């Protein structure tokens, strides 16, 4: 009993020292159970967001208005599937299988980013998602490249590179619309009006109401607070919106000399909570499509497993 407690204490000291020295924690290293659970929860939610996030954009693949845009969009949606793959693999290093995590997604026990519960109503939404949603994701994720857990940090390095392509492509799509016909311009402005506030909500609740933040910061899973990242995002977007020739739908948005940041209006956290609770415009639709794809694919996965068993093939 005493030796075991002493051992646990020694392991914990090694773990704490690694964190303090900004070293990476690797899959075989000892780690506290809650650290492991927090990482699995966060990586799973992130992976789920990548694959659910394919839906609103795939919605426009078959209607993309030029072949060049169609190729860009298809490649983007494919990238998101790839991000899902990296992240499920990173979560597997902590002993949780992709099947297990998908099961939790399908049964509603794990979440995905609420932003994907909004609909893509026009082609301009594809641009707004790239510019704002991928943009917010990058702001959130760049610090994760220095996350204390090695496999997660390394997955994020690859992902962030691709997300920054997506962000630029989205911006460029909106720029083409904003410089286009009156109808195209209006389409772009309408999309930005609808996606701006949900994008700000992507950073999570304000710091004083965030449940997991403090512990995650101490573990160096998280490096900056929600409000800090949100402010950083607003500061990046305002000049970009100006270059686009589009307005952001916030009358209180203005530069504050004393803070050295843009001030912005209050966020409707009631809407955030409602969407989180399942009452967003597309929650049911997204999870239904995901479940259906999974269920309709069951016979394919069974066939692959049966074939592999017969032929001694390593399973895909």
């Amino acid at each position, binding site marked *: 009993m005493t030796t075991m407690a002493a051992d646990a204490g020694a392991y914990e000291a090694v773990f704490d020292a690694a964190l303090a020295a900004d070293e990476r924690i690797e899959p075989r290293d000892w780690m506290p159970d809650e650290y492991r659970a927090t990482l699995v929860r966060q990586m799973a939610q992130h992976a789920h967001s990548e694959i659910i996030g394919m839906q609103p954009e795939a919605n426009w693949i078959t209607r993309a208005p030029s072949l060049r845009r*169609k190729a860009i969009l*298809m490649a983007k949606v494919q990238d998101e*599937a790839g991000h899902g793959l990296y992240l499920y693999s990173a979560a597997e290093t902590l002993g949780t299988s992709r099947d297990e995590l998908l099961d939790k997604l399908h049964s509603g026990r794990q979440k995905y980013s609420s932003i994907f519960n909004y609909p893509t109503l026009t082609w301009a939404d594809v641009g707004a998602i790239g510019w704002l949603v991928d943009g917010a994701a990058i702001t959130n994720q760049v610090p994760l490249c220095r996350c204390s857990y090695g496999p997660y940090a390394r997955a994020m390095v690859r992902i962030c590179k691709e997300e920054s392509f997506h962000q630029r492509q989205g911006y460029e799509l909106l720029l083409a619309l904003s410089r286009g016909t009156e109808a195209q311009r209006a389409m772009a402005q309408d999309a930005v009006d609808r996606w701006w506030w949900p994008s700000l909500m992507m950073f999570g609740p304000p710091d004083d109401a965030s449940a997991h933040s403090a512990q995650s910061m101490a573990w160096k899973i998280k490096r900056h607070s929600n409000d800090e990242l949100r402010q950083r995002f607003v500061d990046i977007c305002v000049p970009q919106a100006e270059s686009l020739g589009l307005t952001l739908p916030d009358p209180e948005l203005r530069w504050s000399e004393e803070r050295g940041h843009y001030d912005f209006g209050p966020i409707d956290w009631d809407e955030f909570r409602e969407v989180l609770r399942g009452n967003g415009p597309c929650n049911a639709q997204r999870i239904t499509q995901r479940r*259906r*794809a999974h269920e309709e694919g069951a*016979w394919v996965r069974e066939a*692959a497993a049966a074939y592999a068993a017969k032929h001694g093939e390593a399973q895909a």
Partner: protein
Amino acid sequence: MTAALALGDDALVLSHRLGEWAGRAPVLEEEVALANIALDLLGQARVLLSLADDEDELAYLREERAFRNVQLVEQPNGDFAHTIARQLYFSTYQELLYERLAHGSGPFAPLAAKAVKEVAYHRDHAEHWTLRLGDGTDESHERMRRGLDALWRFTGELFEPVEGCEVEWHTLHDAWLTRITSVLERATLAVPEGPRRGGWAAGAGRQGIHTEPFGRMLAEMQHLHRSHPGATW
């Protein structure tokens, strides 16, 4: 440029159909694989159509009767086995055709030389899944059989000579049938019986005669572009 349109439309239309799978594939790896194939085909289509005229005008502003693709590629996705059957028939054909074009001296030789590598992967992917589904479970075997049977009647058209492609169509056909027979045997599946084409005397798709689902596919594909005449995107 009959040939550029024929080959370009094949690639454009099949790419579109594969794009419909996005977000609906049976496993995440197949989201990536199907998108890869769709992207390769779209890339080929853009080069080929640009040889003929403006790629977007051709893709978005032609009426159904002006498209020159074979009917096989416009067939709706169906279940995963149906899609794989379509992929197997088409990619086997496309690889054999592009190999020949790559070795020829015609205007498509450079494109074909590049595309044949991509298409070899598409064919490999289709064969891989034909084996797994054919020799997997009873259900997958049955679904694969149904897909192969249903699409068999669209395979004759693949070997209608295309003006401008210097290819021996007879030997191309024989090579195709040999290859398909061998894959299906390994997959414990029978080569379908029955006619290889519908009742049209014409080359059907190659002459602009398509099947009903194609019009609806084009309506979806062209709607936004046509709603904003003259706009750039």
